[in-house]
């Protein structure tokens, strides 16, 4: 019991001291969200932390009608490794969420925040992307580049409207605390 409480305290303090905002992906649609997620400093491209290959998983899947929350790198649910790239000339390296570089006071943890996602919607529970005819041909609709619009490396609107539904990226912030949201309707 003591150990459980200790684990909880450590878990909590880890998420409180992190500077990155908590990201919530709410998929209200009837399709599955498959996307890579990118965190960078404000206005620059590096260091870059992402959920993308060759890290595991190589994309974030948020099934239809579910919500995924990510409050800090070390506490990320279902993430075996993040892809970390410190500069344009250095290689991108998969790092376990517990790696010291992903926790404060590391600059990577304190400077970066979720700003972009590149995603596609799939028919729920399948590997078939949502396309004009429901075929397995890679679709052109709802092929989203969605972001907070602050990053020149990853251009994308913060609101996308398609015949299949809408998606948006927004923040709610006050007093130095920011919550980031990706909502799929």
């Amino acid at each position, binding site marked *: 019991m003591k150990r*459980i409480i200790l684990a*909880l305290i450590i878990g909590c303090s880890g998420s409180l001291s992190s500077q990155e905002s*908590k990201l919530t992906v*709410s998929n*209200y649609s009837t399709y599955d969200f498959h996307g890579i997620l990118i965190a960078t400093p404000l206005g620059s491209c590096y260091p870059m932390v992402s959920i993308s290959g060759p890290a595991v998983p190589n994309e974030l899947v948020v*099934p239809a009608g*579910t919500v995924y*929350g990510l*409050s800090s790198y070390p506490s990320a649910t279902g993430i075996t490794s993040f892809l970390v790239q410190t500069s344009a000339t250095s290689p991108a390296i998969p790092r376990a969420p517990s790696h010291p570089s992903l926790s404060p006071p590391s600059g990577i943890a304190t400077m970066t925040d979720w700003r972009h996602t590149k995603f596609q919607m799939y028919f729920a529970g399948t590997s078939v992307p949502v396309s004009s005819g429901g075929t397995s041909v890679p679709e052109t609709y709802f092929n989203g580049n969605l*972001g*907070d*619009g*602050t990053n020149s490396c990853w251009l994308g*609107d*913060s*609101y996308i409207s398609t015949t299949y539904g*809408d998606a*948006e*990226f*927004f*923040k*709610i*912030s*006050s*007093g130095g*605390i920011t*919550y980031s*949201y990706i*909502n799929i*309707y």
Partner: protein
Amino acid sequence: MKKLFFTVIVSITLLSCTNESAAVNTVESMKTTEMQKFDRAMKSLGDPANRSTEEEKRSGSAELSDRRKKILLPSAMELIQSTGVTKDEIQKKTNGDISAILVWAIQINEEKSAQIRNNVKL
């Protein structure tokens, strides 16, 4: 008695592992009325009348617009009040700032959700 307790714990653990969506549903159903209302308000941002206007899309800011923040405000107030804080105290602490009230409500929502998830896990 111990054996029964152990069996119950093991079966709960197994159930929660093998059926993630069931666990998610449990968390949802254990949320307070105020938490559920706040979640619904968040979802209602996708209702046709509540979606981003052309002007809001062009604003260049990823911060949710004040108009859309106001959609979340009533349920945020209720959620904060459900912890025993009065309307006057909310006004005093936030100076009536919508963003401050929303961040406060989101923090409460996160904390309560985490508590529920931990209870489901344990």
